[in-house]
């Protein structure tokens, strides 16, 4: 065996964090394939019939690959690019909107997810488990909706004001568990989790009983924010692509988070507190200030995610805003976990989650397999990432010289 190839093989069989994530991804799709196979009636019928004739086994195998293949193919072409449509656009110059829509949609969904996940990731790195990002994002959206629809200003003032209102809305919700933890020691997991319900009820209240409700409506729908407060489509409204300036906001947040965590002294204090609270206290770091600041930053980013979601897509709120499966604040927890709480990793995991959701929709439309499959894959991937030992056993990976891969979830609740 040539030396080069052996080294390549060695790389693929040695445990490294990014490799575990990659294999977790493969396993996630394998689990998804099993779910498709076991829930598709035609495939199951084909397998039941394999003893009836000689060709039945071949048919069953072919059908299995056809069905799973069609699902994952439409998922890919729906989330990234459809080569045929793209080639058609390149050769004829027509249909660029259609060709670029999948990518545009994935980026549209990824932008607020990136922002919220960076906020959750910063908290994680400080050893704080902020499960309240969803409530913080909802109030960010509500505060932004007030500023965007009830105040009227030119764009260069209105848009920043709306985004700022969103941030402040998130900070307001984030400060409650922050102050409670800093001054009374109340556990942030309980407080942030419960606040989500409080804020969800508050959302309905503001939509049904305050000036935010759309005039002439009794339903739970808000006023539409002014065009001057909206995040405009990146390529203009005429492009027909929804990807908007929220993506630029997300990019700024990622750069800020990287600088903050890696280059600023406050970020260093944060990480030291996360790694070893006792040592941090001994070295003179004000733990109370760090806790409060973490919640200000984490809550503020969640609030920003909420307003980016609203100002970039629907431009109004309704009673289902970030509720249930749409709760980006909850998704952000798993995205941050998958991205190992680092801004760069979070960008990739956000794109993956957004792509699975967007591609899942195309898959459902084309094959009838429910969109929930995307959730199954997302969950399976996170499950495998959270249990590196399992991945290591399945793929028989060598340990690195540095030792075990650190559990991504370690430190929670400490």
């Amino acid at each position, binding site marked *: 065996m040539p030396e080069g190839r052996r080294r390549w093989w060695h790389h693929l069989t040695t445990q490294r964090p990014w490799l575990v994530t990659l294999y977790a991804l493969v396993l996630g799709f394998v689990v998804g394939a099993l779910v498709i196979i076991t829930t598709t009636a035609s495939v199951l019928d084909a397998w039941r019939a394999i003893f009836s004739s000689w060709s039945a086994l071949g048919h069953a195998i072919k059908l299995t690959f056809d069905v799973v293949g069609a699902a994952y193919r439409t998922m890919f072409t729906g989330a990234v690019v459809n080569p045929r449509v793209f080639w058609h656009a390149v050769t004829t110059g027509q249909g660029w909107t259609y060709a670029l829509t999948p990518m545009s949609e994935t980026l549209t969904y990824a932008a607020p997810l990136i922002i919220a996940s960076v906020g959750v990731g910063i908290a994680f790195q400080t050893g704080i488990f902020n499960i309240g990002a969803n409530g913080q994002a909802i109030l960010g959206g509500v505060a932004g909706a007030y500023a965007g629809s009830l105040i009227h200003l030119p764009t260069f003032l209105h848009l920043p004001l709306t985004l700022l209102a969103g941030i402040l809305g998130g900070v307001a919700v984030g400060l409650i568990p922050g102050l409670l933890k800093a001054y009374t020691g109340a556990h942030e997991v309980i407080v942030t989790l419960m606040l989500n319900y409080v804020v969800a009820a508050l959302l309905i209240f503001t939509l049904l009983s305050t000036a935010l409700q759309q005039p002439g409506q009794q339903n739970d729908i808000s006023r539409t924010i002014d065009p001057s407060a909206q995040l405009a489509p990146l390529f203009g409204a005429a492009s027909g692509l929804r990807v908007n300036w929220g993506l630029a906001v997300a990019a700024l947040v990622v750069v800020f988070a990287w600088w903050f965590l890696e280059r600023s002294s406050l970020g260093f204090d944060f990480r030291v507190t996360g790694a070893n609270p006792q040592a941090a206290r001994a070295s003179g770091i004000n733990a109370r200030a760090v806790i409060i600041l973490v919640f200000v930053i984490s809550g503020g980013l969640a609030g920003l995610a909420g307003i980016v979601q609203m100002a970039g897509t629907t431009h109004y709120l*309704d009673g289902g805003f970030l509720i249930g499966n749409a709760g980006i604040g909850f998704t952000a927890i798993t995205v941050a976990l998958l991205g190992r709480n680092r801004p760069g990793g979070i960008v990739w995991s956000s794109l993956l989650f957004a792509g699975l959701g967007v591609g899942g*929709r195309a898959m459902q439309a084309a094959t*009838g397999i429910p969109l929930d499959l995307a959730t199954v894959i997302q969950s399976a991937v996170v499950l495998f990432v959270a249990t590196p030992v399992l991945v290591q056993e399945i793929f028989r990976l060598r340990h690195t010289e540095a030792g075990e891969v650190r559990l991504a979830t370690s430190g929670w609740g400490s």
Partner: protein
Amino acid sequence: MSRGDRRGVRLGVWLGTASLVLGSLTLGVGSLTAQAAAKPFKACVVTDTGGINDKSFNASAWKGMQDAHARNKNIVVSYLSSTSSADYVPNINTFVHRGCGIIVTVGFLMDTATQQAANAHPTQKFAIVDDAPQHLKYHNVLALQYETDQAAFLGGYLAAASTKTGVVGTYGGMEFPSVTMYMNGFVAGVRYFDKVKGAAVKVLGWTPAKGTCSLASCGGTGTFVGNFTDQTAGKTITANDFAAGADIVFPVAGSVGLGSVAAAQQAGKGHSIMWVDSNGCVSDAADCSWFIGTVAKGVEASVRDAVLAAASGKFHGGTYLGTLKNQGTALEYGGIPVPASVKSAIATIAKGIMAGTISVNPNNYPAK
């Protein structure tokens, strides 16, 4: 075999599986294009966040699509569920690009998204349930609306004629016009009974406001759960109504009404429930003996007819108004026997409502 080799074999198997999966991605391309020859008519529905299993109007719309397929096998139906309002636009666009003959959208929340898509695609046909977009450029949208207060009026009359205690109750999921319209009609029916029979049956849970009731605005004060999912709250409200002397309760709250059924079962014989939307003796057959009737809304039939019309080239944009006359809303009897005299009285009243001689506005009758 050394440990290192085994490791290699295991990895090889996994990579092999992965490559087979990836390989099949490219294999299937040909088979997809081959299907297009039969030229089926695609009917597509974008559901609200409830999804097609919500046992409420999303489920009814999907059932209507399947009924259309059952009548015309050339119609192929598919659906996309939305997880939030941000999904409406891409979901509709996905179906526009897939060449759907008609796209059905469900609920007032999809008003803006449906309207934008309809104005951007003049040749694309749409139908929207429970809503009427106001700023359409073309005649490519059929708005499906239902005057449910007409059937609820009959329901109110039936409840008033059947109560032994002289008290009936109602409550809603959330205070939306599509919900309060039922409650308003119910109160009107009770008040009408009181007027013509000289009775004094009381309604708990809804006091209509002055003015008329429409799907855009139907005001008043009453009891609401705050959602369409909390059955425990439905049970508590119903038990409270029973404790306050009521023996018939009309929940307008989707599956929350199952909590009312549980409360009636706990309270025992003599207590009953008026079901809503789709016949309780079909959707919840096991509890049929607790239903005095159902105030039904013809979402299924109207969606089915819209799809069939579009498939046969007879689609016309505009508004479909479900009334007693076209059976877009109806009172259906449940498992509890109703005297023939009451049934014939209700049939006469229904004719009066259809003819416009009987008003369903509760403000036209004295409140007791």
